[in-house]
C-alpha cells in the first residue's frame, strides 16, 4: 500500500494541480484548520519580510531620529510601540527587519542543501559501493551530531565568528547547509535504494537503459516526491538554528542586519530586572514563524500519508485506515 505512489491527477485543471491547492481541497475539518492557520502565518511572515522597509518605523540599526537618541530600555510608548533595547534600538523595527534576514538565510540554506543533498543521495544510493558506504558513515556521523554545535564550528571556519550583512547571512546559511545536507542525503538515498528494487526500475534495466537514463528518467523524480515535506520542516529548523547561532554570539552583527537570536541574547540581563519587552517580541516572532511553517509541513505530511489522513465524514476512529486497501480497490477503473 505504501508503495503505491499518489499521483496528482494529470487531467485535473491547472488550478487544482498547483501545489497546496490540491492538499487544501483534500483536507477536512481540523486538519484543514491546521493547514490554513499555518499558511496564514507563513504568508504574514513572507509579507513582513517583503514589505519590511514600508512596515518598519525605523531602520534596524537606527539609534536616533530628529528628536534625538531613542534611549536605552525604554518601555513601550507611542513612539516605540514595543519599546527599545539595551543598546537603544527600536524593538518593533528590529523585529520586522528580522523577518527579512530569516527569509534570506532560509532560502539560501535550504536551496544549497537541497541541491547538494539530493544529487549526492541519488548517486550514492544508485551506484552503491565503497563511496556510498563512506558517505553513509560520514552523513550518519554528522546527522547524529548536535546541529547547533556543528553550525557554530562552521560559522567560525567561514567567517571567524561575525561579519557583515552578506558575509553574515552567507556564513549562517552555509553553516546551516552543512548541517542539513545529511538529512536530504539520507532521505533521498533511502528512497533511491527502495525505488532501485522496484519492478519499474528493473524493467528499465532489462530494456537495456543506461545507468544515467535510469537515474534521471526513472529514479530521480520518484525519489524526490517527499522532499517538499522535509523542505518545510527544514525551513523551520533553519530559523531555529539561525536564532541559536545569534544567541550564542555567532550570528550577524546588529549593525549589519536585524537578527532575532542576537536580540534575545542581549535581553537575558533585561529579563532578570523585569524588562520583558526586549525578549518577548523577537521571541514571539520566532515562535510564530516556526509554528506556521511546521503546521504547513505536518499537514502536508498527514495528507500525503494515507494512514494519517482524515477523510470526510471521518470522526475520531483509530480504525479509519483499516480497510484503505478495500477502498483503493473500489477506486480502480474497469
Amino acid at each position: 500500500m505504501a508503495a503505491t505512489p499518489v499521483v496528482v491527477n494529470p487531467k485535473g485543471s491547472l488550478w487544482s494541480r498547483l501545489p497546496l491547492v490540491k492538499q487544501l481541497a483534500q483536507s477536512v475539518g481540523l486538519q484543514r484548520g491546521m493547514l490554513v492557520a499555518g499558511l496564514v502565518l507563513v504568508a504574514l511572515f513572507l509579507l513582513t519580510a517583503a514589505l519590511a522597509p514600508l512596515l518598519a518605523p525605523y531602520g534596524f540599526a537606527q539609534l536616533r531620529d530628529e528628536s534625538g537618541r531613542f534611549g536605552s530600555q525604554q518601555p513601550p510608548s507611542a513612539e516605540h510601540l514595543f519599546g527599545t533595547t539595551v543598546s537603544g534600538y527600536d524593538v518593533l523595527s528590529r523585529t520586522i527587519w528580522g523577518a527579512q534576514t530569516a527569509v534570506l538565510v532560509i532560502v539560501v540554506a535550504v536551496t544549497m542543501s537541497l541541491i547538494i543533498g539530493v544529487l549526492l543521495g541519488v548517486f550514492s544510493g544508485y551506484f552503491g559501493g565503497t563511496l556510498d558506504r563512506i558517505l553513509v558513515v560520514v552523513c550518519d556521523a554528522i546527522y547524529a551530531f548536535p546541529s547547533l554545535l556543528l553550525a557554530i564550528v562552521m560559522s567560525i571556519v567561514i567567517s571567524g565568528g561575525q561579519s557583515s550583512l552578506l558575509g553574515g547571512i552567507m556564513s549562517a546559511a552555509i553553516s546551516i547547509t552543512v548541517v542539513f545536507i545529511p538529512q536530504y542525503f539520507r532521505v533521498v538515498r533511502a528512497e533511491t535504494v527502495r525505488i532501485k528494487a522496484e519492478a519499474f526500475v528493473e524493467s528499465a534495466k532489462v530494456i537495456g537503459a543506461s545507468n544515467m537514463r535510469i537515474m534521471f528518467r526513472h529514479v530521480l523524480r520518484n525519489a524526490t516526491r517527499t522532499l517538499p515535506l522535509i523542505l518545510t520542516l527544514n525551513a523551520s529548523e533553519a530559523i531555529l538554528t539561525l536564532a541559536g547561532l545569534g544567541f550564542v554570539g555567532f550570528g550577524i552583527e546588529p549593525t549589519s542586519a536585524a537578527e532575532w537570536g542576537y536580540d534575545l541574547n542581549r535581553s537575558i540581563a533585561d529579563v532578570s530586572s523585569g524588562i520583558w519587552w526586549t525578549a518577548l517580541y523577537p521571541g514571539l516572532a520566532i515562535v510564530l514563524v516556526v509554528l506556521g511553517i511546521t503546521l504547513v509541513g505536518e499537514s502536508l505530511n498527514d495528507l500525503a500519508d494515507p494512514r494519517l489522513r482524515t477523510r470526510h465524514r471521518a470522526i475520531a476512529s483509530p480504525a479509519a485506515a483499516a480497510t484503505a486497501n478495500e477502498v483503493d480497490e473500489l477506486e480502480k477503473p474497469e
Partner: protein
Amino acid sequence: MTTTEISPSAPLDGTTTERVKGGGNLGRYILVRLLLIIPTVFILVTMVFILMRLIGDPITASLGGRLSPDQLEERKEAAGYNRPIWVQYVEYIGQVFTGNFGTTISDNRPVSEVLLTYGGATAELVFYSLIVAFVVGIPLGLLAAYLRDRWQDASLRVFAILCYATPVFFSGLLLKLVFSVWLGWLPVSGRASTRTELDLLLLDNPTGIYLIDAFRTGDMDNVWDVLAHAVLPAIALGLLTAGVFLRLVRTNVIGTLGREYIDSARSRGVGELRLVRKHAYKPALIPIITVIGLQIALLLGGAVLTETTFEWKGLGFILVEYLSSRDFVAVQGIVALLAVIVAVSNFIVDIIAALIDPRVRY
C-alpha cells in the same frame, strides 16, 4: 539497506521452523555494536580537527593582535603547531583516545579537567530534562493517538509544535520572567544559592552532581535549594524534547493502529484503549526508541542554549565562554567529547531497541 539482495523467492515458508533466537549471543552483539561506534567517533573527531584547523592555528586565533609576531612564533613553536599538520593530527588522535584533550589557551587548564568539572552539571541537566520529556511526551502522545482527529488531539499537536517551535532560550526567558521575576517562586539562575554552594565545596571528593552532593551534606535545605534551581532549566529543555516525543509517539502509534494485527486483536474483542496501550504501543516503541537516540544530539544542542540562559555552569555554558575568548583548543576538546557522548548514547539506544524487538537476531 539490504532489501535489494533478498530474492522475492527467498524461503518464506520453509519447513525450517526452528528459527529460535540464536546463532550468537547478546554479548557478541554488544561487542559488534561497540566496535561499530569507533569509526563514528573517529570521523567526528577528525572532522572537528579539520574544521578547527581550517582557520589556522589556535594560538594565532586566540592571541593574534595581542602579542607581537615573534612572541606568537615562540608560543606556536612551544605548543608544536609548527610541525606538519598530519603529525599534529596523529598526535591529537592518539591523545583523544587516551583521554588527553590538550591545554586551554586562555586559562591554561587541562581540557580534560575542564570536562570533568563541568560535565557533571550538564549530565544533571540532561537527566532532569529527559524525565520531563518522558513524563510529558509519552503519555500525551498515546492520548493524542487514542483521541486522534478530535479537538483534544489537535490541541495536543499544536502544543507539541509549540514545544519545539519555541527556542529553549526564549521559553527559558519567559519562564524566568514569570516564575522568578514576577512571581518570585523560583531562583533566577545558577545551580544553587551561594550558601549551598559553599556547603557543597566543603565536601571531600564532591561528585559535581549537585543533587547527590546536597544529600551528602545531610542538610535538606541544600537539597531543596538544588532542586528549586533545576526546575526551570529542566522544564525549558525538557519541553523541547517532550514536543518531539509527543509527535513521535502519536505518529508511530497511529501508524501501528492501521496494521492488520490490530484489526485482528479488535476482531477478538480487545478494547480500544488496550489496543493503544498494549498492542500498538510496543511495536511502535521500536522506531520511537531509535529516533529518541537521535534526539540526544538535539538535547545536547539545547543544553548549550539552556545553560547560557540560566547561567547553569555546565559544558555548554563554558563552551560559549571559550568561544567568545576564541580559545579553540578548549572548544575542540568540548566538541569532541560531546561527539563521543552522542555516539555512545546511540549505541546504548541500539542495544535497548534490540532487547525489545524479538525479531532482531543477535
